[in-house]
């Protein structure tokens, strides 16, 4: 039996939620943007009116203002967006328990158990769209199809407040003329590669023999070929089946360029502390530390190393990060943003192999100290206990990555 899958995408999510809460903004061009002073000044989303002025997500606020001088910029309010995201999930869960979020504003729904064909799926999509409008006051675009990839294409096909059905007998007309870059997992780099051998549309991708794609893209070739032909069979996950965590990381764009190692140390400490706290909270230890550095010319790189032991101790993670940094950065340019992440997890309850050359007792003490500080921070806020180094430059250290935590769409697999 054919599956019935919906992909629901909240239109200009952040901007819609802001406009809902501020009726005076509804007839003006509005964009949600980061703090220019803190150098986070890019457009995160814009409403339909701003879209008409060709304001683009990701561009700098000054660029957007050149195109549209009346543009109203509102600062983001992530807790509010998360609340609305949860409210949307609640609506979806009325229809099925197979609801798989993709970022804050998108969700796949498998409603095969309620809808027997795509036509019924379309009716359900109408109901969902209506309910979201009544309960949340925002609009969604919904794609209805027999696989997740086409459902997502459907929700992008017509915006805002639209429903697109992609069936087995019409996907060639709808999907194939679209540019290859519209397909899930075809990013800029892949699109460039594909276009180098003359593949510009999804149709051309679908009709290219798999072995050619494989030689160009490796194992992704076959997968994309599958996607383009509508052969994707990936299931929609159960809502409560949250995917297991594979990495924990934090990054930030500093309020000013980092000029020396001392600056980097301050930022890295704050980030490492947040990462280590999140590790301890989740009951995990990690073995691989990875840093990412972006200089003020926007060139960026990442480096990683594996530690000898699993750890969740702030100072060890910070030290590993600093070592990587010292080894691979030559200070030709000053640094704009920096990040640290850890992967390769085990549960913190497993027993550890001690060795002759490290002082396990000291490590245990450190871990206990970290946990006590965590307790204090949970009760009295992240700034209640700080190492002295963070007091050296409060402009740099005055951010809380754990609280202001950012939202990424999870991977598809």
């Amino acid at each position, binding site marked *: 039996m054919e599956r019935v899958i919906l992909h629901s995408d909240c239109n200009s999510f952040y901007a819609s939620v802001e406009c*809902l*809460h*501020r*009726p*005076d903004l509804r007839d003006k061009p509005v964009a949600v943007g980061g703090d220019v002073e803190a150098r986070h000044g890019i457009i995160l989303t814009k409403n339909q009116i701003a879209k008409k002025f060709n304001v683009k997500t990701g561009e700098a606020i000054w660029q957007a203002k050149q195109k549209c001088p009346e543009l109203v910029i509102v600062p983001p309010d992530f807790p509010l967006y998360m*609340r*609305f995201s949860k*409210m949307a999930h*609640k609506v979806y869960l009325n229809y099925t328990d197979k609801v798989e979020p993709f970022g804050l504003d998108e969700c796949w729904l498998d409603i095969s158990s309620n809808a027997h064909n795509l036509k019924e799926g379309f009716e359900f999509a109408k109901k969902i769209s209506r309910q979201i*409008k*009544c*309960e*949340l*006051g925002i609009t969604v675009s919904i794609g209805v199809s027999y696989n997740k990839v086409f459902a997502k294409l459907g929700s992008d096909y017509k915006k805002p407040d639209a429903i697109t059905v992609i069936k087995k007998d019409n996907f060639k007309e709808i999907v194939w003329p679209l540019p290859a870059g519209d397909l899930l997992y075809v990013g800029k780099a892949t699109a460039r590669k594909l276009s180098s051998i003359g593949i510009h549309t999804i149709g051309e991708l679908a009709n290219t023999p798999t072995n050619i794609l494989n030689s160009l893209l490796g194992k992704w070739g076959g997968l994309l070929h599958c996607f383009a032909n509508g052969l994707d069979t990936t299931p929609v996950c159960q809502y409560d089946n949250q995917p297991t965590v594979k990495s924990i990381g934090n990054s930030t764009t500093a309020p000013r360029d980092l000029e020396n190692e001392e600056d980097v140390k301050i930022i890295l400490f704050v980030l490492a502390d947040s990462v280590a706290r999140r590790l301890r909270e989740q009951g995990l230890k990690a073995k691989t530390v990875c840093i990412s550095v972006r200089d003020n010319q926007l060139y960026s790189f990442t480096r990683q190393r594996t530690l000898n032991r699993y750890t969740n101790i702030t100072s060890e993670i910070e030290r590993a990060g600093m070592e990587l940094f010292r080894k691979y950065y030559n200070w030709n340019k000053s640094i704009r943003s920096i990040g640290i992440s850890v992967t390769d997890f085990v549960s913190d309850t497993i027993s550890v192999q001690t060795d002759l050359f490290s002082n396990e007792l000291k490590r245990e003490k450190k871990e206990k100290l970290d946990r006590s500080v965590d307790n204090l921070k949970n009760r009295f806020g992240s700034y209640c206990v700080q190492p002295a180094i963070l007091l050296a430059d409060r402009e740099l250290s005055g951010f809380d990555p754990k609280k202001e935590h950012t939202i990424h769409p999870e991977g598809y697999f």
Partner: protein
Amino acid sequence: MCLKKYVNVTARFDENGNITPLAVIWDNDVKFEIERVLDINPAVSLKAGGAGIRYTCRICGHEKYLFLEENRWFVELKEKQYIAY
């Protein structure tokens, strides 16, 4: 012009976790008893700009909406109320 007004509310929390508003208390300590809750639904208020659980209440014989937005209650003001306010 903001037509959203947060208000003080007296409510009953029963043992099953249901919340029933009993009275709305206006700024000047005037208390408006809620005679009856007619309907409870999640809903948006486009007029006031907010979303939450909407309680349709009968107050002094009139039907009024009272919204529970997370842990705050708000009502929609009429435009002339706004001016008077």
